């Protein structure tokens, strides 16, 4: 027998409350009597218990049974049959690495799954599924219980967030499609609702956690050689978090500092003048449940300076950019850009031109032609007045927009993605887009030539634009579960943080299996290249209140097989019968016992 609503069984703890009326009733009615010495031997012996001798009439046990039946019915007991075709879905997301005692949540889940598989009959079949990076079946064919246990023991959680799917609907769909007798989801999320087929086994308890949410190593400007590190640490707990933050370069400690983060708040940290290393690691000694987010990795930007490839039919206007220190400029014509291939640049500027598709690099579009992949172009206007701008924003810093009057402008119309940075009454004048780790900026006016102090507002904007693109290329840092932002050559092997050798995909040259946090190394042409991959998710490190999984199973909808037989209606009927019996044995009219006649204590002695 199983209970479909086991939480209701906690109400059974209320059963002792039934004693309360009897304890209250137990306070006897005080009745005066002439002399009690004749009755003394009939009185029960006094006991050491404060409540004395509790006399429970048989009706009490009837009421107790009645209440127990009602509360049991609330738990919706059902007779279940031994399943033979089950699915086990294991949450292998990062939060399952959190420690609960001496075991991780995932190890607890493995133990629970072992028990369930162990209880299966020998001819039963089990399918194993993992949630991360997506709901995936582990084996093509259903496994025997022995094989399932063997596969189960080899599983480990990944440094990934769990997919944002509707678990209730997805699992019900799985049950429907595969005709599972039962599906068990093992996770650290609680569940709400109920399903006849889907069972959620929740592990873990709420606990606090400190997490490094961002770690970047960059240069202060594109011309500066010094490196600086910026970090954010969030405290996902109800108490202040104290920790020591250590910055390591290529495994060697470079700097450390102690911090205190208030409960539920973020702390920012920065370290300047870091020596150049191949990669950096930030670590906090929080000693909390989830160790994964106590470390984060970063790779410094490859070199100082800003290499720009400018594509323009008017190269003379762009040549003025060479006046800016640290800028290396290569100007080509649109025809040459289409014909030739160029080595990667930090920024590509399309001046009165546009490629057929968005380039896989940061790109600035200046008054692009109508056929461009980024924005639509509006009607021309002269010396427009800026009517609005994003603030604060790196692109609009230090600019006096009252003086910002481009001589010629065409309003832009961004597509479904894109953010208007500067606006004139006719529409946006600057639109910023971030896609696939690349930044794109489209301008409806021409900021060139770069005139320096002669046109300060536009010159400042130009410098802001270059700074904005510069900060976008802070090292080769990616997120677990996402492909590395590099195309690898055929046959190139990447060494994962756990020592596994991974081959990039043959067709795209991308490396997608970034399931572990750490430094990925590739050796191409004898030069070792490092990629930092970090686990990054806003919800996963918060171990306090995981969201509940909503189950919306309909009885009998999962399979055509009657897997459960509800017995709670019979319990209700039995309770009703007991109620009638109790009513018959102890009717309300007789419950109230007649009050004793008050003793007349007339002090008058009157003769009639």
């Amino acid at each position, binding site marked *: 027998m199983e209970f479909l609503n086991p939480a209701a069984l906690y109400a059974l703890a209320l059963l002792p409350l039934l004693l309360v009326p009897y304890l209250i009733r137990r306070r006897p009615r005080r009745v005066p009597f*002439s002399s009690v010495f004749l009755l003394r031997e009939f009185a029960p012996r006094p006991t050491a218990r404060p409540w004395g001798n509790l*006399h429970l009439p048989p009706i009490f046990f009837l009421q107790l049974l009645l209440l127990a039946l009602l509360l049991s019915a609330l738990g919706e007991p059902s007779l279940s049959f031994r399943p033979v075709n089950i699915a086990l879905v294991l949450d292998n997301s990062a939060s399952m690495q959190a420690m609960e005692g001496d075991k991780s949540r995932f190890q607890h889940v493995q133990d629970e799954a072992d028990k369930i598989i162990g209880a299966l009959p020998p001819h039963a079949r089990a399918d194993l599924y993992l949630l991360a990076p997506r709901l995936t079946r582990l084996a093509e064919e259903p496994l025997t219980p022995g094989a399932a246990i063997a596969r189960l023991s080899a599983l480990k959680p990944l440094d990934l967030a769990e997919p944002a799917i509707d678990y209730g609907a997805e699992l019900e769909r799985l049950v429907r499609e595969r005709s599972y007798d039962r599906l068990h989801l093992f996770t650290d999320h609680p569940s709400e609702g109920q399903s006849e087929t889907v069972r959620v086994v929740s592990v873990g308890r709420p606990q606090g956690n400190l997490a490094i949410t961002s770690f970047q190593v960059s240069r202060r400007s594109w011309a500066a050689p010094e490196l600086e590190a910026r970090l954010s640490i969030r405290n996902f707990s109800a108490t202040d978090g104290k920790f020591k933050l250590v910055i390591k370069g290529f495994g060697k400690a470079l700097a450390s500092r102690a911090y205190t983060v208030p409960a539920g708040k973020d702390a920012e940290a920065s370290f300047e003048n870091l020596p150049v290393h191949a990669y950096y690691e930030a670590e906090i000694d929080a000693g909390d449940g989830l160790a994964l987010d106590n470390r984060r990795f970063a790779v410094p930007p490859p070199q100082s300076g800003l290499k720009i490839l400018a594509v323009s039919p008017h190269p003379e206007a762009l040549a003025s950019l060479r006046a800016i220190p640290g800028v290396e400029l290569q100007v080509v014509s649109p025809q040459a850009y289409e014909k030739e291939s160029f080595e990667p640049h930090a920024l590509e500027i399309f001046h009165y031109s546009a490629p057929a598709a968005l380039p896989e690099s940061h790109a600035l579009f200046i008054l692009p032609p109508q056929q461009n992949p980024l924005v639509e172009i509006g009607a021309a206007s002269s010396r427009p007045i800026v009517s609005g701008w994003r603030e604060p924003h790196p692109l609009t810093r230090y600019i006096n927009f009252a003086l910002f009057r481009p001589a010629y402008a065409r309003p832009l119309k961004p597509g479904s993605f894109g953010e208007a940075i500067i606006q004139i009454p006719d529409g946006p004048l600057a639109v910023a887009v971030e896609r696939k780790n690349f930044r794109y900026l489209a301008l409806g006016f021409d900021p060139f030539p770069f005139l320096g102090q002669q046109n300060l507002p536009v010159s400042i904007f130009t410098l802001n634009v270059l700074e904005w693109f510069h900060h976008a290329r802070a090292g080769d840092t990616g997120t677990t579960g996402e492909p590395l932002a590099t195309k690898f050559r055929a046959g190139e092997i990447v060494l994962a943080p756990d020592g596994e050798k991974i081959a990039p995909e043959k067709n795209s040259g991308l490396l997608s299996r970034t399931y572990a946090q750490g430094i990925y190394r590739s050796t191409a042409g004898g030069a070792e290249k490092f990629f930092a991959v970090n686990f990054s998710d806003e919800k996963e490190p918060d171990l306090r209140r995981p969201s509940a999984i909503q189950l919306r199973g309909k009885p009998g909808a999962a399979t055509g097989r009657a897997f459960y037989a509800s017995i709670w209606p019979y319990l209700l009927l039995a309770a009703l019968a007991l109620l009638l019996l109790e009513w018959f044995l102890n009717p309300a009219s007789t419950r109230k016992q007649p009050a004793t006649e008050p003793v007349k204590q007339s002090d008058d002695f009157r003769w009639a």
Partner: protein
Amino acid sequence: MLPAPFTSDFLNRLEVLRLRTRKNVLGNHPGAYSSPRRGTSLEFADYRKYSPGDDLRYLDWGIFARTDRLYVRLFHEEVDLFAYIFIDASGSMAFPSREEKFVPASNLALALSYVVLANHDHVRLHSLKDDNATASPFYRGRQRMRDLIRFFSSVTPGGSLEPAPCLGHHLKHIRRPGKAILISDFLAPAAAYQQGLNVLRAFNLDISVLQVLSRQEIEPALPRGELGLIDSESREELRLQWSASLSREYREKLERHNRELKSFCHQSGIHYSLYVTDEDLSQFVLKTLPATGLFR
């Protein structure tokens, strides 16, 4: 005004009664009760040798004729009676109410007193309670009924009662042997009331015991279930589960208790009667008590 039971008919019938004593009494005046002293009654007691100065009317000439010796006849002295009526005024006598127990007991005492007064004997009332024991003066003559009623009116039953010490306190002031009538519910352990009756016996009193119980004490109409019975004297609370079987056991125990009291009285030469307060007083006084030998 006399209490309700004391109708003129009842009073007339009381007047023909006279208390019976089993012992000689010492009275002040000639009366109807035999005294240990020699006197002038018609009842012959003994002979004594003649001494000069003896009344020649009492010489037994027949003995002188047969033996030639002078003897005088002696007769018992008949004196009036001193009756002491002790009435229990403890808290239990106010259960279930004063009107239902103490007042009937007082009426009984008044009826007995009236019998004594109507015979020109002396009666004295004693209220028995631990903290405030009082006694009236000796009364004689029917006209003192008003004083007796006033005495009972002044008594409020309450508190506890230890019979032996309380009776001992009263007996310190009694000089003449007479008739002692103890009216009480005797709802006390046997040892307690036996000590009290023994104290009376030690004073050479002719003792009568009238046990007064209310119907509520004989057949308690208590609600079923757990009760806290409050003792009317000690205020002790006794918790018990009242049921029909317990009620039956209580009645049996009370009967045993009464039998034990009656048996003790019988062995000690004490007259015993039981009066249940819902009975008719006149019936009890005029029928029951003469039948049991309290009156003659």
